[in-house]
């Protein structure tokens, strides 16, 4: 006897479902929107840094060094008399660029590897995942530290290091849905029709994997920015006089007894960006994961 379960209206495309989910997430969990908004503000501040700055961020002003916040220097000056506020804005650029490029490249590479591993399965999958798990189990900071130490501290190598630490996560995330989708009938059909593997992977598997991947991307961007700051703090970041948040805290640390604000402002900046990204990513992830969703 035909017995279909509850209503089955025409199935919506994955994209439509995704957008619907996003819509519901932002409406139901206001904090997610707050996170997105804050992050957007930071991005805008970084983009318009030169316009928003009050001083040249590299200009030294020995006469005015180590001053507290004032009308002239919104957040005070550092040990070289440079304006902290302007340096903060330019530091945002560095953090966002390094984090952004690292995550985007990790996303591309990791997703590709994950889909390949999931699609082909068997020995390929085993080997890839073994490597992946080893990479994954290394603390991100240590791994990044090692890579930058080996290659030398500059922006490019920072990006490479942080990208490397993020790839295994994306591989994992991309592989899981690939394995599920691979078993579906329409993939069988594609193969029967003679589609080439790469075509199946790009046109049929990738779109389904994307939503999971994008959700995690914001969370890992938060981690990437955190790692970048930590590496800069250790001294492995972009070299001075360029301004990086971690580097600013490092310099501020030397003067911490008398001038704590040198460390506080950049510290708060890092916190703000990472926190807003976490809010955003958390909300997105809750929306996708059925267990933590509301009934």
């Amino acid at each position, binding site marked *: *006897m*035909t*017995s*279909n*379960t*509850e*209503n*089955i209206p025409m199935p919506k495309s994955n994209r439509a479902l995704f957008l619907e989910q996003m819509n519901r997430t932002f409406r139901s969990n206001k904090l997610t929107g707050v996170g997105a908004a804050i992050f957007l503000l930071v991005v805008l501040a970084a983009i318009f840094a030169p316009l928003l700055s009050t001083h040249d961020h590299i200009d030294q002003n020995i006469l005015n060094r180590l001053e507290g916040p004032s009308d002239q220097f919104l957040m005070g000056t550092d040990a070289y008399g440079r304006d902290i506020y302007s340096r903060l804005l330019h530091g945002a650029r560095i953090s966002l660029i390094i984090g952004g490029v690292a995550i985007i490249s990790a996303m591309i590479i990791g997703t590709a590897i994950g889909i390949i591993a999931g699609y082909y399965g068997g020995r390929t999958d085993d080997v890839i995942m073994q490597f992946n798990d080893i990479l994954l189990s290394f603390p991100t900071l240590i791994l990044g530290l090692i890579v930058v130490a080996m290659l030398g501290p500059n922006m490019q190598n920072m990006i490479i290091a942080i990208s490397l630490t993020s790839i295994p996560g994306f591989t994992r995330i991309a592989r899981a849905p690939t394995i599920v989708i691979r078993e579906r009938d329409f993939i069988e059909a594609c193969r029967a029709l003679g589609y080439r593997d790469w075509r199946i992977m790009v046109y049929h598997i990738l779109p389904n994997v994307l939503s999971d991947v994008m959700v995690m991307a914001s969370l890992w961007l938060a981690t990437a920015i955190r790692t970048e700051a930590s590496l800069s703090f250790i001294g492995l970041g972009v070299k001075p006089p360029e301004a990086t948040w971690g580097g600013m805290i490092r310099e501020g640390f030397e003067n911490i007894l008398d001038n704590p604000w040198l460390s506080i402002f950049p510290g708060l900046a890092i916190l703000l960006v990472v926190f807003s990204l976490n809010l955003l990513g958390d909300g997105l992830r809750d929306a996708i994961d059925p267990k933590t969703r509301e*009934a």
Partner: protein
Amino acid sequence: MHTMPNSKQSRESDTDIILDVRKLRTSFRITGEWHAAVRDISFNLRRNETLALVGESGCGKSVTALSVLGLVPLQNGRVEAERIQLGEHNLQGLSEEEMREIRGNRISMIFQEPMTALNPVLTIGHQVAETLLYHRKMNKEEANKTALELLDKVKIPSASSRFKEYPHQFSGGMRQRVMIAMALACKPDIILADEPTTALDVTTQSQILALLNELKQDSGMSLIFITHNLGVVASIADRVAVMYAGKIVEIAYVNSLFAQPTHPYTEALMLSIPRSDRDIKTLHSISGQVPPIGRIPDGCSFAARCGLEQPICRKLDPTLKPIDVGLTHEVACWVRGDYNLTMIEEHANG
């Protein structure tokens, strides 16, 4: 087809009724709005009787059982009824603490998926003995001893050595026996069995059914057996209630139902059972789908798939009415039931 059990044509004596449900309505909040999954159904259950609740997935039969036991999650669910009478108690008015005392004690429930219904980190011995610990206040040794006897009773081989094993070490059929042992522990008046054999293979299925029958005869308890499989119903039920879209559309003693399936839905269900004793060329199926929980049309919910529908079917929802002299076979259908149609039509149009 299996042989029919001895269905008793018992007297309609009220003292025999162990569970009386009147106008049960269970609703769920789905994306903000409340929709009824069980729509004002009424039925009763007598001592030592097996009542089968039959219907497709989504017709509300499981929800009915959960509603009786108060297991409907309250954040998004609401149970309303005129009464849910268990003997002398109206379960409607009881506090959560009082309901807890009823559950596993006077009413037990068995669930469909033996794989997931047992706690994987607790031994099965403990899970069987648990109700005895909490309801009968036994100490550990007594409870374990009794639990062991129960495992024997449900025919688990080498029960004593398997007492301390974990659910994943048992097969599906064995796990279901464990569930039954758990349900029987406190000698309940009623067992609610929600599709207990659906997840099992056919051989195991018949073993479990035979076990349930035997246990029921021994203990004198009543059984509400929920299933979508009419074939199973024939071998275990005394009375059958057919549900569709949250309503009971036909209710009768099992012999009578099989001899004279009256509601068009029941008839269609009967026709679609694969039978080995007849030569049938094609499998009959019912066209259309069950209306989803939020979109039940006015009038008879089966009208769109019926084939026999009349204009009145689209306007008014039929009520259950007896079609036999003994008043035990009831049907809710304007066309096949026994109503004063002209009077009703006037009422509908006027």
